[in-house]
């Protein structure tokens, strides 16, 4: 069981309390009607899917319920750090 640090609760809790919520820092388009098909494709479907360092969103569903961001290595599954939503990419 992976242990994850929730930056809001400031506590290390088991993975079972958390839900994964996909790649982080994908901003919703500011002006959707101005987007081309290629830009929609990139926003909706294209994902970094790196082999290594991955910025991703998690939600502490069985805790404070809040979304936060994390950096995890996708080869070892080891969490490097977690940070609050809204903070810049780390």
């Amino acid at each position, binding site marked *: 069981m992976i242990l994850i640090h929730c930056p809001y609760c400031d506590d290390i809790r088991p993975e*079972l309390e958390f839900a*994964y919520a996909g790649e982080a820092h994908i901003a919703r388009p500011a002006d959707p009607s101005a987007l081309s098909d290629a830009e929609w494709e990139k926003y909706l479907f294209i994902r970094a899917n790196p*082999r290594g360092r991955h910025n991703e969103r998690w939600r502490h569903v069985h805790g404070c319920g809040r979304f936060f961001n994390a950096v995890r290595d996708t080869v070892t599954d080891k969490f490097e750090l977690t940070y609050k939503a809204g903070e810049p990419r780390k």
Partner: protein
Amino acid sequence: MTRFSAFSLFAKALGGHQSWPELWPDAQPKAEYDAIIVGAGGHGLGAAYYLAKKYGITNVAVIEKGWLGGGNTGRNTTIVRSNYLYDESAHLYDHAVKLWDGLSQELNFNVMYSKRGVMMLAHNVHDVQSFQRHIHANRLNGVDNEWLTPEEAKEYCPPLDLNPNARYPIMGAALQRRGGTARHDSVAWGYARAAAALGVDIIQNCAVTGIRRGADGAIEGVETERGFIKSKKVGVSAAGNTSVIMQMAGLEFPLESYPLQALVSEPVKPVFPCVVMSNTVHAYISQSDKGELVIGAGTDQYVSYSQRGALHIVEHTVAAICEIFPMFRRMRMLRNWGGIVDVTPDRSPILGKTPVKGLYVNCGWGTGGFKATPGAGDLLAYTMAKDEPHWINAPYNLDRFRNGRLIDEAAAAAVAH
């Protein structure tokens, strides 16, 4: 190549089975090939075989970073079926099922394709309606699929528990009789042996480290751990690592790689006659010819390349199996493992050309690639040989994520499949 037959088996037995030749030679890379396949799983080896057999391109190399068939080909739950809802899917998967028939004879290698039937259990009114819709759609596409009452399902698969007080009562089932299982390793070995006999080089332990493109953007070849190999056509069939390979060519793909786990029990006497899947409880089970119960379910929740998953996912899967089949509650599980599956947004594969000239792709099979092995290999070979997709794989292009023509089996199955 020694042709396997009862006679050759008998003749070799007289010599104490000491004189069997190797199934395929361990090839060293040449400087140039007419076509290169990246990834020696069932799909990649199948593509190499069909390139040589059906399309006359024999100067082919299959490059594999690990060992042959050691990725998802050797990690799946070996289920073969084609009862998909959409026309495009029915054509694609049934093309594969048609090739499964007779594959052992064609390859002269026993892939142990067993048409024992794939049964999908309906536990509620929604399941009943959804499966009956699937059955009608399948029949229109010439794919066999039939509705069974609970009693008929029990007759076909006696371990089913029809207790109406069960937490997940069985209200009926959809049965594809042509579905079943095959020996996954044999598929890779059979294709490798047959392809090598036609002149294909199979190069193991040789990771691709880069893809070289010319001034016009077209493919010139691949950089590997054993040096540069020239080729104007490169087909990528690298499952969970497709994103990584495509980034080498400067392409971003709509893929995410997740661990998918499976497990087997200790071997027992024949107790389970077919494949049973439950989308509602979310698990599937069959019994291998060796006697192990083979069990699987959905992917882990987060993107990973670790080839193992979290134990609580397995616990959930086993709990689901015990709900449907209380008789297995005291069965001991022997081992579990994970493979990395590449999942597309619509849960349908991407099979065809890419924006880079000379680069072809077969990926995005997600949790259901094994069943398609012969079909995917054949269609990738066709696309590479003709430089245009076959009508069956034409809808599975990369452009669909831009023009919106998704083949949304994710919504149709409402479950990883």
